[in-house]
């Protein structure tokens, strides 16, 4: 028998629940039994509740087993799992698991499928097609294709990527930059991390294409220090790309030059805000810059700069390879393409769900997510990170796209969905929003720096029922002030979780239900 190929993810989430130990135990057990296996450490498929998810390559496709722990290994061998034998942990063909089968994986097509650092596998799974096309196209034609795709920034603000690129492309000057925002600070989000660990070449390919499109020869990836696995993966991926002449002075002999530097953040949420990130990349305190000028005109070291999120850039190779029109066929309204949603918190089947815009929140939480992990009823979900709204379970039929969410007083942000059960105290969640803003404020403007402290203190009083009416008035006043008077969305959006909690769950603030509605 030739060696059976076995996949055990090395994604940080999988490793956090024992994937490394499982990989070691598996190799050991195979050796003990005199069986030859070919072990591949892939990225994660994003079915995180099944991690560590072990896959076996069989003639009919890859078969999944999970969640596997070291104590299951000998039983799996006994059951003949290497030839697809039956076992309690068996999940059938991976591609047929409904959670995965019902997704539209464009950006994450290769994530969890291949060895993330195997360039040959990358190419045989469609990698580099986009780049090779781009190297033949005029820069303006690349930008046009990205514009036609309708791709919008996945970092939170949803600004059309093509329009940003066009601004930078038209700027004169011989030094321009591509800065990839890999700060992913939002609680409940991990798609950037999964992609950087599971398919880092896609991100690099996207950056090279962006460089050609706007006339930039240097890129930076600003990645948060909390992601050691992703940092290692990126470093290795950049080295591979350099060796393969996919980065350097003359990429694939095209005359196009591009290099990528990796820079590590230092634990500041605000450094995900683009101008703060640029300050940090310049070695300074991560203080937000006043706009204008926008980074596209005066960004890193004062030069025209494209700042894009990991997912935005990692989607570009798909767009170039398949055409902007193909990508824009997914989605609805002004929200084109797919969004990698991330299901987190108290959820039975947490993980990554890449779907065309328009899937409902209910389908994500109940259909994909299977309700809570605890088994208690769902009460609310916070969508879009720490600055996003709390949406009550009764309003889960909302479509997940930029406009529909905005229409119901919420926002998509980076696509995180954090589920809470009935035991959540919404006044405490509101307090946390203010506290988080206090901890992470860059301190540049008063509404945010002082407002968050006052907001937290006021909520403390509300929580113990002190002068309720008066303090609620103070809180609402503060929220208006922060929304209207803050320099950036940190202070400007912190009121969103606070006011949504208050609006939908007045009883948690000591109010009668109708009174606030």
């Amino acid at each position, binding site marked *: 028998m030739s060696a059976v190929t076995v996949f055990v993810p090395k994604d940080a989430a999988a490793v956090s629940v024992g994937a490394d130990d499982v990989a070691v135990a598996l190799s050991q057990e195979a050796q003990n039994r005199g069986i030859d296996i070919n072990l591949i450490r892939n990225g994660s498929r994003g079915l995180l509740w099944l991690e560590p998810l072990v896959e076996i390559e069989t003639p009919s496709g890859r078969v999944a087993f999970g969640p596997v722990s070291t104590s299951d290994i000998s039983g799996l061998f006994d059951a003949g799992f290497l030839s697809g034998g039956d076992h309690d942990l068996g999940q059938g063909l991976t591609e047929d698991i409904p959670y995965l089968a019902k997704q539209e994986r464009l950006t994450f097509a290769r994530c969890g499928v291949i060895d993330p650092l195997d360039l040959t596998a990358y190419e045989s799974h469609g990698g580099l097609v986009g780049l090779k096309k781009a190297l033949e196209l005029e820069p303006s034609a690349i930008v046009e294709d990205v514009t036609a795709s309708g791709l919008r920034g996945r970092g939170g603000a949803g600004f059309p990527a093509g329009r940003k690129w066009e601004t930078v492309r038209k700027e004169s000057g011989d030094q321009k930059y591509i800065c990839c925002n890999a700060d*992913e*600070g939002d609680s409940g989000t991990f798609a950037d991390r999964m992609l950087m660990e599971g398919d880092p070449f896609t991100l690099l390919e996207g950056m090279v294409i962006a460089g050609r499109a706007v006339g930039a020869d240097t890129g930076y990836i600003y990645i948060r220090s909390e992601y050691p696995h992703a940092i290692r993966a990126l470093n290795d991926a950049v080295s591979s790309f350099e060796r393969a002449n996919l980065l350097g002075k003359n990429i694939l002999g095209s005359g196009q030059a591009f290099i990528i530097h990796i820079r590590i953040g*230092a634990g500041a949420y605000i450094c995900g805000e683009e101008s703060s990130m640029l300050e940090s990349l310049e070695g300074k305190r991560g203080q937000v810059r006043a706009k204008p000028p926008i980074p596209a005109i005066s960004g890193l070291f004062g030069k025209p700069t494209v700042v894009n999120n990991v997912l935005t850039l990692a989607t570009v190779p798909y767009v170039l390879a398949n055409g902007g029109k193909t990508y824009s066929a997914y989605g609805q309204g002004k929200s084109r393409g797919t969004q990698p949603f991330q299901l987190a918190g108290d959820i039975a089947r947490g993980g990554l769900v890449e779907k065309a815009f328009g899937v409902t929140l209910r389908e994500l939480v109940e259909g994909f997510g299977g309700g809570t992990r605890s088994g208690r009823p769902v009460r609310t979900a916070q969508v879009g990170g720490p600055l996003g709204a709390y949406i009550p379970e009764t309003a889960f039929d909302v479509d997940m796209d930029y406009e529909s969410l905005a229409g119901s007083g919420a926002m998509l942000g980076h696509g995180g969905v954090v589920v809470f059960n009935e035991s959540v105290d919404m006044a405490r969640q509101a307090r946390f929003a203010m506290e988080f803003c206090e901890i992470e404020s860059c301190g540049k403007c008063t509404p945010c720096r002082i407002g968050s402290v006052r907001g937290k203190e006021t909520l403390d009083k509300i929580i113990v029922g002190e002068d309720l009416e008066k303090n609620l008035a103070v809180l609402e006043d503060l929220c208006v002030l922060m929304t209207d008077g803050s320099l950036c969305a940190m202070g400007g959006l912190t009121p969103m979780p606070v006011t949504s909690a208050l609006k939908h769950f007045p009883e948690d603030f000591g109010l009668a239900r109708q009174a606030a509605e």
Partner: protein
Amino acid sequence: MQEPDEKRAVLKVCQDHGSRPENLLEVLHAVQAHDGYLSDDSLREIATCLNLTRAEVHGVASFYHDFRRVPPGKTVVKICLAEACQAVGCDALKEHAAQALSTDMGTTSSDGEVSLEPVYCLGNCALGPAVMINGVLHGRVTPEKLDSLVSRASS
């Protein structure tokens, strides 16, 4: 006073980074990786090497949560206190940790054995509560699991 040796080490880190002020964060990371924290002497040395004022270097070192001005405990336990982990009980885990390790959140135990620190999201939000111990990420951490992880890390 700092030993000349350490002074040389800081100087070397700066030179490795081209003694360029825009590499200040990387220099701070590297010096902290070497010494465990950023001493007053190190900051002074860095300022000289990068041609920055001490105020500028201090300003950067104090802005970012990662940089330490005092030595950490032998074992550093970071517990995620952000929303997705709140939804699965990180508050109870935090209280358990503070009691079991006899350390308040954000401090180092008096015997210097362990530092207990908050962190806001480790990107493991579907498998919370998430904890990082000496740089190693763990998921679905119950109080019992925390105890065994900490004792393994510190033994």
